[in-house]
């Protein structure tokens, strides 16, 4: 069981190691969404697929990637593209990129009559994009085993999402949605690091 304290401590350690110059690649740290993710992951089964974005450390830990394995990937510069075969986990650093990949996995699960499902976590800017809506429509119409989760901090890097779109769309009721405000900046830790 991964507690809120474990999540916060992990991210704090990443922060410290990044500031010590041990991690020579961008890191995207999370905070203040621990409770929401812990609750969501209570419904994620061990054999499910999880797709996440560049801010993925919490998702990886909650899905069962061991702490040392994850930290090792981060130190080797893979914070933005954490992956695992068991448990099934994939992430990407391109906005919207994971969505149709997750859709394809869901399609294959249905074709192979497997019993697991796909969880696809996206930010609110990604949710507003065309690729999300095409993928969501396809998944819904063909009843594919995929659950979308929108994590709304109203930011895409430092750009306010609602300002750029002139508003936001309503989130359909079959999509899990939560809002949060992180204490960390988009990437890095907010402190000057001399590499």
């Amino acid at each position, binding site marked *: 069981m991964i507690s809120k304290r474990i999540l916060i401590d992990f991210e704090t350690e990443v922060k410290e190691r990044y500031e010590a110059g041990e991690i020579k690649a961008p890191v995207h740290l999370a905070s203040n969404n621990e409770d929401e993710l812990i609750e969501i992951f209570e419904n994620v089964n061990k054999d499910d697929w999880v797709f996440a974005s560049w801010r993925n450390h919490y998702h990886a830990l909650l899905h069962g990637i061991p702490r040392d394995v994850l930290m090792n990937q981060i130190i080797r510069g*893979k914070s933005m*593209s954490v*992956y695992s075969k068991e448990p099934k986990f994939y992430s990407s650093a391109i906005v919207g990129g994971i969505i*149709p990949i*997750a*859709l*394809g*996995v869901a399609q294959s699960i249905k*074709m192979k009559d497997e019993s697991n499902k796909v969880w696809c976590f996206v930010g609110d800017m990604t949710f507003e994009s065309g690729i999300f809506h095409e*993928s969501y429509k396809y998944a819904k119409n063909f009843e594919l085993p995929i659950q979308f989760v929108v994590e709304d901090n109203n930011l895409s890097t430092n750009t306010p999402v609602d300002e750029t779109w002139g508003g936001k769309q309503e989130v359909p009721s079959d999509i899990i949605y939560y809002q949060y405000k992180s204490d960390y900046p988009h990437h890095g830790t907010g402190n000057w690091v001399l590499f």
Partner: protein
Amino acid sequence: MKYKDELIRSMEWLSEKDDTTFIGQSVKYSGNAIYNTLSTLPDEKLIELPVFEEIQMSMSTGMAMNGLVPISCFPRFDFLMRCMDALVNHLDKMQNMTEFTYRPKVIMRTSIGSTNPLNGGVQHTNNYTNEFKSILNEVKVVLLDEPEDIFPQFEKAYNRQGSTLLIEHGDHYNDK
């Protein structure tokens, strides 16, 4: 055998594999030349998709991550340009990004649009083979010039780890 007949033979051979599936627009319904190489395949092997090339490419990637071998059909090279992000930033980077944990096997088909007897013009007849060979690292790019190349290349595509883009000549459907 002639060019088109070799393509049909290759597709029939691929369709006999348990893990293959053929996806794209006009795989089940007529509308382009590639359809004419799939019309002998069993219906359950075909997934007709909407026109959403970028999603098609990444759907294929996801299906391959879970053990299927999609034969993903893009009727013209010009249309394949619409999925460059999915191809270049995702499928072509996945082995590197995951340190060979995921090695999706997607077999992509596309065609250089024919110019004879009808010339499709500048949006339908381009050959970007060299550009794709230059930009893709993990995805193998193969130009199908001669009829005798076709079956062995599809065989290799199925048997190798990783993905392959096979490029056909629309004009050769008639002239070879």
